[in-house]
């Protein structure tokens, strides 16, 4: 049985949270063994589609865990209800802290616009939906064979970050260009003035006898590779498209978690510390023990080290929220929480004095292994923190053209990313795509001298 004390604390912490203005969907807590938590941490969801790459992450996590380098405290899945998991081997003090922490997350996902938008798209039951995806995929394995399904998953999961959450989850196919259809509407107001830049020739209205042009697909650079392939692959089977769309849906769910990690973990850490501080029903020794756990979670460095080459999002977010509530008050902090994601949060609210107080710096690592702290201004510091988060952590690759013969032309925005793709890996990914696209696949990127190169799947090489 879960600890009696914990059972008593949960409703008390929840009502305290309500008094302090937290607002969220109900939370279902479940106490589970550590092995389960480890899997959740690896798969990102309690039940998820099978793939060998999760096995690699899992064994890695197991080793870390066995060496005592990683301890998982909680996992919570936003939704209605939120689903939170506590570890049955953690102490009641640790789990009390975790309950308060989870309420912070629940408040965040209920109010932050990035989360709200995502949940409006994906729905409030991702845990059940992911389980249904997994179930469906296992069924397909029965009929199509595990190997074929695995090939599709190789491709779909490799493209997981290549979605476009600016577009709705349920997205219609491209409409034929207006030129071919009804006469264009007269542009109004702003559009009329600026549709054509000064000095630019106004576009000649298409003559009546002009041949009806085939629509260029995609009509604009398409960043949602999962969606595009699922809808435009010339020879994909329905179950294969379903797998692509299942992976895409889960990616839509993961993206806000990824894009708000600093804010979200910081917010939850701020609230667990504040809730426990104000929880007069907690025995004082218990409060002290909880706070020990707190300082382990939000510490900036591992162990005895004095310097870290990455920034602990719990620590950074926690300190930022602490300062913001102190300077501007809880209400203003709540507004910021609702409106920003990590990009806006760090750029707008990590100021020079806090950065200095926290000892944040920019470093550069050379190929010979030398790592040196560099001179940096605040802007450079912001971008160094955020760089790993750009574009869901992936290079900007988009669909440039679907040729009439079915050739898929992908293009990498090398200028925007500052350098070209890793050629070897890119070729392997093209091999994955090639197996489901079943027509030629090409990818344009830059070599180390900035010249454009065209990559093909590894086996197509000349």
């Amino acid at each position, binding site marked *: 049985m879960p600890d009696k004390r914990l059972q008593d604390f949960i409703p008390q912490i929840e009502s305290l949270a309500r008094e302090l203005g937290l607002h969220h969907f109900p939370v279902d807590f479940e106490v589970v*063994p550590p092995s389960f938590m480890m899997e959740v941490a690896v798969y990102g969801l309690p039940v998820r589609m099978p*793939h060998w790459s999760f096995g690699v992450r899992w064994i890695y*996590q197991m080793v870390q865990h066995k060496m005592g380098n990683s301890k998982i405290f909680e996992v919570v899945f936003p939704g209605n209800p939120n689903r939170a998991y506590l570890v*049955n081997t953690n102490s009641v003090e640790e789990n009390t802290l975790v309950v308060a922490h989870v309420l912070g997350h629940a408040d965040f996902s209920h109010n932050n616009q990035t989360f709200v938008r995502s949940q409006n798209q994906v729905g409030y039951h991702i845990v059940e939906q992911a389980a249904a995806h997994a179930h469906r995929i296992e069924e397909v394995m029965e009929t199509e064979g595990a190997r074929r399904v695995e090939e599709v998953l190789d491709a779909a999961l490799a493209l997981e970050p290549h979605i476009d959450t600016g577009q709705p989850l349920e997205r219609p196919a491209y409409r034929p260009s207006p030129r071919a259809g009804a006469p264009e509407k007269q542009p109004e107001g702003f559009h009329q003035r600026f549709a054509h830049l000064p000095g630019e020739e106004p576009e000649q209205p298409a003559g009546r006898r002009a041949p009806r042009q085939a629509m260029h697909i995609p009509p604009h650079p398409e960043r949602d590779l999962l969606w595009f392939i699922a809808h435009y692959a010339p020879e994909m089977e329905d179950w294969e498209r379903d797998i692509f769309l299942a992976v895409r849906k889960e990616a839509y769910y993961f993206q806000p978690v990824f894009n708000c990690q600093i804010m979200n973990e910081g917010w939850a850490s701020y609230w667990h510390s504040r809730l426990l501080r104000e929880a007069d029903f907690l025995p004082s020794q218990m409060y002290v023990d909880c706070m020990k756990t707190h300082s382990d979670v939000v510490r900036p460095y591992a162990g005895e080290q004095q*310097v870290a080459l990455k920034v602990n999002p719990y620590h950074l977010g926690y300190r930022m929220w602490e300062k913001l509530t102190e300077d501007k008050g809880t209400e203003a902090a709540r507004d910021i929480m609702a409106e920003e994601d990590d990009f806006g949060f760090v750029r707008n609210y990590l100021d020079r004095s806090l950065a200095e107080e926290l000892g*944040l710096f920019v470093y550069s690592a050379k190929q010979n292994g030398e790592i040196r702290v560099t001179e940096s201004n605040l802007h450079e510091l912001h971008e160094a*923190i955020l760089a790993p988060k750009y574009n869901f952590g992936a290079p900007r690759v988009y669909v440039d053209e679907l040729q009439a013969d079915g050739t898929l032309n992908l293009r*990498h925005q090398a200028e925007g990313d500052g350098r070209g793709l890793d050629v070897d890996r890119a070729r392997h990914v093209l091999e994955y795509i090639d197996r489901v696209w079943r027509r030629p696949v090409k990818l344009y990127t830059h070599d180390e001298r900035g010249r454009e190169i065209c990559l093909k799947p590894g086996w197509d090489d000349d």
Partner: protein
Amino acid sequence: MSLHNGESGDGANRWYDLFSRGTRDWLRHNEKVREAVREQLPDLVAGSDVLSRPENRTVKVPVRFMEHYHFTLRQPSEQTGAGQGAGKPGDVLRPAQPVRPGQGQQGGGEGEGGITFVLEFQIDDILDWLWEELKLPNLQPKEGSAVEEDTLIREGWDKRGARSRLDRRRTMRESIKRRTAQPTSNVPISNEDLRFRQLARRRRPTTNAAVFFVLDVSSSMDDHCRKLAKSFFFWALQGIRRQFSSIETVFIAHTVEAWEFAEEEFFQVHGQGGTKSSTGLAKAQEVLDERFDPATYNCYLFYATDGHNFSEDRSRATDQLLELAQAMNFCGYAEVSHQNHRRLDTEVAGIWRALDEAGIPCGSYSLTREADIWPAIKAFFTDQAGEPEEA
């Protein structure tokens, strides 16, 4: 709001106790690695490290984690990141690492893709793959070498016997027959119905092999040579083992004297001084005469040396080898050395050429590096199959 416990008795939440998805996907990963390993198996197993645990009939092969590829940016020459702690501009947090000689300046290989772990393979699996891969012919047993051996086989039945040999199908048949004849009986199975299988002793032919490994352990045979010899012997032995139902091995090491060893000690032996091939061959002859009847055994001789031999030993060694080879299905000579040139141009190689000229089935193989092992093994099995049957 509620607190559930995954361990509560209703069983609804316990599915994850029964089944680990992590394990499942990890095993699938390993399976993929095995497939990949299999493709380059001959190269991998030639590395002598794989011979570490022959007693378990498994070998351990170091492999890398498979990488699930994603689009990533090219490694920049200089990477920037954000850190935290006591660091002022200009501080060196880690000095440049000296480039290790022999290690290419190939970047990458970091992260998950760079981690290696050890997979254990069944030697029998490897052998099957190899035989398939290398298209190796099977060994030719000697005509008439089949040995009769007693084996117990199941034959006939009886109304009495041990419980373990109850023939249920026949017993049921008897029961049905009886109940059809006596419809009033309501005894499902009576003692009269019971039928037991009987065992009978039969003589069956089996194939036996005796394999002689003779290794030169004189001071000129260094670790490198010994390792090559060991690998060659090991895989040749495994190949023979694959084919014969019972196999006996004889391990002989020699310098100017010769001794017989147990398999475990054999490769650890270090000797001092010069080389007299004849002593090793004489020892093999002695063991052969003592324990094995060439009429009932398929005998194989393998001799590994660096090729140096006292020239005054030449005639004795030649005679001894000719005598010994009469009893053998096939003789293999493995010359292990460091140089690529002057292959099979040594004192001992000359003696073996004499053997070949005398029309005795034999083969000579030169090994200077690990990559030579498989061609040598392949040559051995091919030569052996190609030889006409001994009279």
